[in-house]
């Protein structure tokens, strides 16, 4: 069979089976994948991988057989990798008995054996389950210019945009194969041309827009293109500090889930926009203006997918993508203020904050007062993936509220702004 990608002698030898039949199939898969997108060559990865598939979902049984084949061939990733959050946490996210049966016996019956497979293939640790692997506490933090084999759209867009690493929006398994080979096909966001902006987004709002709605608006407009955002630095400043990182994390996740954005540039803020300025914008770029009316229009367009649209909310998820250490403290303060305002001691709606295991460890160790306050408010802290938790017929029927545009997009969860969700969770309804 003739391939279009140019292969080095070593790569050709792997494809020819010199290092075994299984590795040859791994190589063939990536060559065909590269050919499909016009890649001309492979490029070496320079940092650890992040995998999207963290769940032993029974529907993927053939994938688990493939994993066994990789393990039997003694294949392992070049460096230890991280992976998305687990789908279940019975201790902190309570389930009904029917839900537990569906989760344990039907949906995620393969969870334990799948985690054993991940460990054999190079999983970093038992705590490496988060969508925010780039947090300092987790440690899978690439550098500017690193070449990555990652999947998980929110992590890819963060690494590309905020850090300036280079990674395509990969499918599950493809990222694992890249991590095993230590190579990825070079196309799209790995190239200078692919990182140029086809859209200029002009922010003309009266105040800093909600990150999750601004990201949604831009994602829906530009889809898979690269936007160059002007006018946001006047609200965020020109320093990527912890609060700005958190804003960009949530903004980026919404661009990626409401559209298919893999990279954005923020004028005067993100590294490539600072380095190249408007040179990174294509001459034929289109313009999208976001003002207060546009933010309102986009928010009002979100449908309420609950079967009973007047239902009282049963559960509240905050932290998709997982919260940062700073965000955990900020959310405790926000709930404290609202409880005081409503003269209450505890939240009415079962509220769950989600964050990476290592971020939770740090929060418990270094901010004991806030952690105890959180517990006293009746709020739970979990490292679960709310999206995977919601991805079953029973959980999907619950009246769940969230401030995550990603969770809103992929499930029946109802979107609330940050201010709205605190109010609703404390008072128990809209």
């Amino acid at each position, binding site marked *: 069979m003739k391939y279009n990608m140019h292969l080095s002698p070593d790569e050709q030898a792997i494809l020819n089976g010199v290092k075994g039949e299984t590795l040859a*199939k791994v190589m*063939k*898969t990536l060559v*065909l*994948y590269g050919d*499909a*997108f016009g890649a001309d060559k492979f490029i070496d990865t320079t940092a650890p991988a992040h995998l*999207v*598939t963290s769940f032993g*979902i*029974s*529907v*993927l*049984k*053939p*994938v688990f*057989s*493939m994993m066994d084949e990789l393990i039997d061939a003694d294949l392992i990733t070049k460096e230890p990798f991280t992976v998305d959050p687990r789908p279940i946490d019975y201790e902190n996210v309570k389930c009904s008995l029917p839900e537990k049966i569906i989760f344990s016996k*039907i*949906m995620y019956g393969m969870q334990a054996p799948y985690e054993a497979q991940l460990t054999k293939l190079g999983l970093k640790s038992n705590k490496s389950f988060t969508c925010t692997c780039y947090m300092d506490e987790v440690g899978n933090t690439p550098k500017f210019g690193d070449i990555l084999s990652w*999947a*998980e*759209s929110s992590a890819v867009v963060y690494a590309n945009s905020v850090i300036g690493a280079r990674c*395509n*929006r*990969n*499918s*599950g*398994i*493809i990222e694992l194969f890249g991590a095993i080979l230590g190579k990825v096909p070079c196309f799209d966001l790995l190239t200078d041309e692919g990182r140029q902006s086809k859209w200029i987004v002009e922010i003309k709002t009266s105040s800093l827009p909600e990150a999750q709605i601004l990201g949604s608006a831009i994602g829906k407009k530009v889809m898979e293109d690269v936007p160059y955002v002007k006018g946001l630095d006047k609200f965020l400043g020109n320093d990527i500090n912890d609060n700005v990182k958190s804003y960009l994390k949530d903004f980026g996740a919404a661009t990626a889930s409401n559209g*298919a954005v893999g990279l954005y540039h923020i004028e005067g803020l993100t590294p490539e926009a600072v380095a190249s300025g408007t040179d990174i914008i294509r001459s034929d770029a289109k313009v999208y203006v976001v003002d207060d009316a546009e933010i309102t229009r986009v928010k009002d367009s979100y449908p309420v997918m609950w079967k009973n649209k007047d239902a009282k909310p049963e559960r509240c998820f905050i932290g998709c993508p997982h919260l940062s250490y700073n965000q955990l403290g900020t959310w405790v303060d926000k709930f404290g203020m609202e409880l005081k305002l409503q003269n209450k001691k505890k939240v009415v709606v079962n509220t769950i904050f989600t964050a990476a295991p290592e971020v939770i460890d740090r929060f418990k160790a270094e901010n004991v007062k806030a952690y105890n306050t959180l517990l006293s408010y009746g709020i739970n802290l979990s490292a679960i993936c709310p999206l995977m938790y919601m*991805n079953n017929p029973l959980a999907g029927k619950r009246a769940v509220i969230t401030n995550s545009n990603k969770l809103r997009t*992929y499930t029946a969860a109802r979107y609330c702004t940050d201010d709205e969700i605190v109010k609703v969770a404390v008072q128990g309804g809209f």
Partner: protein
Amino acid sequence: MSKSFKGRPVIAGQISCEAVVSRQGVNTLATFQKSALMKKKEVLSSDQNNPDIFEKNLTGKALCLPQTIGSTTGGMVLFSVCSLGIAPSAMLFSQPIDSLAAAGVILADVWTDSKIVAIDNLGDEFLQYVKDGMKVSVAQDGTVTVD
């Protein structure tokens, strides 16, 4: 009267089958999950958000669509339903293939004994012309003829 459209073979093959048409992006996980979980012998689309194909049989059919959308598990789901022998025979894309669908059809081609013939770049006119139940013939060079 038949009409032909020229696309690019991502996974080449020669096949004739019945068309099932989605004019919106197909959410792979939502579409295939229920039938695969229930170990059905045929896939009836379970995506309520896609009325074009909801509850229609996709096994052995030519699924005509713009692109796939949704979770990055999409590629693995396509690979899995192909392994289970309940996949569409062909996926015919009016637009360039997306990375999730590409991963799925390529994984199926390399790692299973069966495959999903995949042709992309067939153009908007293809998706406007083809209707449910029409006979679709795919040639090795990516030419799709609709009767």
